[in-house]
């Protein structure tokens, strides 16, 4: 039987039908299986993304004609103090999320790893907040931290006043209050992820470390962390992306106020598109969002290509 997978020597002419089967029909068959997914990807992701980039160079109001304005939206963007406020808030948001929830996730996972009885119960308790939608999560904390009905107001009746202030109504605390609420919602998921990664670490490595006299902290530092590095890097990437694109918690808890103190790029984009009817400008904000998100992704990709084990 003829083996069509082997190249035919140049000295022997290939029948046309055989050549078409090998170079056209079979590849087309393979592509046909992925074609539906490609079509969905194109319609849902690629076309809107390219459209969004193009609209960033227009004055489109979301309804009428889109007229080309070149770089005018980007020039306006780089002179917009509110955009820089929003960008700064996003950097703060991301920085806090890369520290506090990750630290709490690692600590929680490390402590849970040492529990044999009842571990599942603790994992479930820590994971429950993650299962809430952001709307439910924000409503819970809006009333827990309410200046009239909240924990602070109730404690103040007994003379404990350190929490008796409107966290989301003050410019200096609004953003940090949102980070707290979002972090409470998120850290349980990290515990579960890190715990799963820690259980995959070879126990012999810990045994060797103990024999070498390593303390528990040194075991964590030199055995656990390097072993779960891929999971750690993965969570850092998704945190970076998630906190750069954060919208729901900010929109519901403060709307970006007071006076843009908790404004982030996503809420500012929304305001420009749906309240100012300046979709072209909003699209330019979206382009900047995408560029900012691509920075760590690009670094990650480059380092992986260079052989870094991350």
């Amino acid at each position, binding site marked *: 039987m003829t083996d069509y997978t082997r190249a035919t020597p140049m000295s022997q002419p290939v029948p046309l039908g055989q050549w078409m089967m090998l170079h056209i029909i079979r590849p087309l068959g393979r592509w046909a299986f992925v074609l539906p997914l490609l079509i969905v990807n194109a319609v849902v992701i690629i076309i809107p993304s390219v459209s969004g980039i193009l609209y960033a160079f227009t004055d489109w*109001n*979301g*309804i*009428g*004609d889109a007229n080309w304005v070149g770089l005018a939206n980007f020039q306006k963007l780089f002179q917009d103090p509110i955009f820089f406020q929003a960008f700064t808030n996003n950097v703060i948001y991301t920085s806090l999320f890369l520290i506090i929830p990750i630290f709490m996730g690692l600590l929680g996972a490390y402590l849970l790893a040492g529990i044999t009885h009842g571990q599942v119960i603790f994992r479930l308790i820590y994971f429950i907040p993650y299962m809430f939608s952001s709307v439910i999560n924000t409503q819970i904390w*809006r009333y827990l931290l*309410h*200046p*009239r009905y909240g924990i602070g107001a109730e404690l103040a009746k007994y003379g404990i006043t350190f929490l008796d*202030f*409107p966290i*989301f*109504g*003050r*410019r200096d605390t609004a953003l940090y209050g949102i980070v707290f609420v979002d972090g409470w919602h998120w850290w349980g998921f990290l515990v579960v992820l890190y715990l799963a990664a820690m259980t995959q670490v070879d126990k012999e490595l810990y045994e060797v470390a103990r024999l070498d006299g390593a303390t528990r902290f040194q075991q964590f530092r030199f055995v656990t962390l390097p072993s779960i590095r891929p999971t750690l890097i993965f969570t850092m990437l998704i945190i970076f992306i998630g906190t750069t694109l954060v919208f729901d918690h900010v929109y519901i808890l*403060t*709307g970006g*106020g*007071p*006076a*843009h*103190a908790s404004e982030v790029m996503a809420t500012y984009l929304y*305001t420009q598109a*749906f*309240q*100012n*009817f*300046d979709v072209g400008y909003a699209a330019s904000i979206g382009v900047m969002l995408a560029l900012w998100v691509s920075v760590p992704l690009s670094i990650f990709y480059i380092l992986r290509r260079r052989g870094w084990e991350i």
Partner: protein
Amino acid sequence: MKLLRPLILIFVGLFMSGTVIAQDEVVTLTLWVETTDQIQLDHLQQALVQPFEAAHPNIRLEISGQEQMQDVLRTAILGGTAPDILQTFGPSWNAEYIAGGFMEPLNDYAAQYGWEDELLPWAYATGTVSGTLYSIPLTYESIIMFYNRTLFEEQGWTVPTNRAELEAVANAALEQGIHPLSYGNRDAVFANGHLISAYLNNYVPREDLRAALVGEKQWTDPVFAEAIALLTEDIAEKGWWSGGLENYYQYEGADFWTELATGEAAMIIVGTWGFDSAPLYFDETDNDWDWAPVPNMTETPQPSVFPLAIGSTLAINANSQHKDEAAMMLNFLISNPEVVLDIASGFNFSEWLVPLHFELDDFPEGVDPRVMRFHSEFAAATGQGEYGYANWTFWPGPANNHLRVEIEGVWEGLATIEDYLAAHQAVWDDVRASGNTIPVP
């Protein structure tokens, strides 16, 4: 040839049956409304759909409530799936749709049915752009002051009608640990605009405010700065609202209405949709409520002003396949005051009250006399030309957004009033250049 005659008969028969079917065809009109309250939707079925369909047997009217309707409607309009009849939040929302050709011109229908004679003149004008009618007003509103009448009687306070009386009541309330006023913008930053409108209309002379709206006066004029300064002083420095500006940012409707109903606050300055809210909260207490015009804020007392406002409008989708039938539905509302009043009764006359030439006798029995008093005083004042201009009706979208959002920078001390108004003027200049302004009566 033998087959030709039967074929002709068959074709004629098919054509005739198609014509008969077309004559009996029932047209279905679709309308999306912003209420999702099932009681109110059921009321619309009983008060609007049923009488309309009874009067128009070949038209079915399908009404559905939509959450976040303005966002949903915008997407549907762009996607070609919008309903036949479009309900929007008012003229300032319509400019973009009109510019994009999504709203059908209604001049021919208005002439056919005589709408200009049925609607109040100022209300009819708000639906026009460059002389072409695009929408009819569905709800007229204003800004007033609700107060806890029981609290005022117990404390011996006089309902304020001017700045001096307002300060007296506010100081007396603060001494009692009562918030002089309560409000909040956590539901929506729209609340900022309500307060700005209340102060602008009751401090700035009407002709000056109108001049700024039509471009004959600059927003940087000192009279506007003084009004904004007064509001900033009251809300940010004196803390008259909600126990402080920081609380104001966190309060939503349930918070400030509860404060008023329980006597923790004395007054609320809000739109007339408050007639729907006040009974809900006061019925849970032993206190009673009432309303008064927003006090005049000038040093030399002047009559209070009712700002004109259109809370929502109805328009015909330019891509609708049933424009004539949609116009019939609009005409059904405009030409039947008793139907309008019946519909509005389900909203405590705070919505769906098309601005027609009502008489007080037209209102059904059992209507809250406080609500009747508002409509009576509003009609009397506006009929004599004593009215103002609410931001959500007469400020174009971008200008309205700047007005209510960036005021927080002034309240927080991040921006001067002069810078705020200069930026506001710049937004107006851009809007005027694009031609998307709103007619001002």
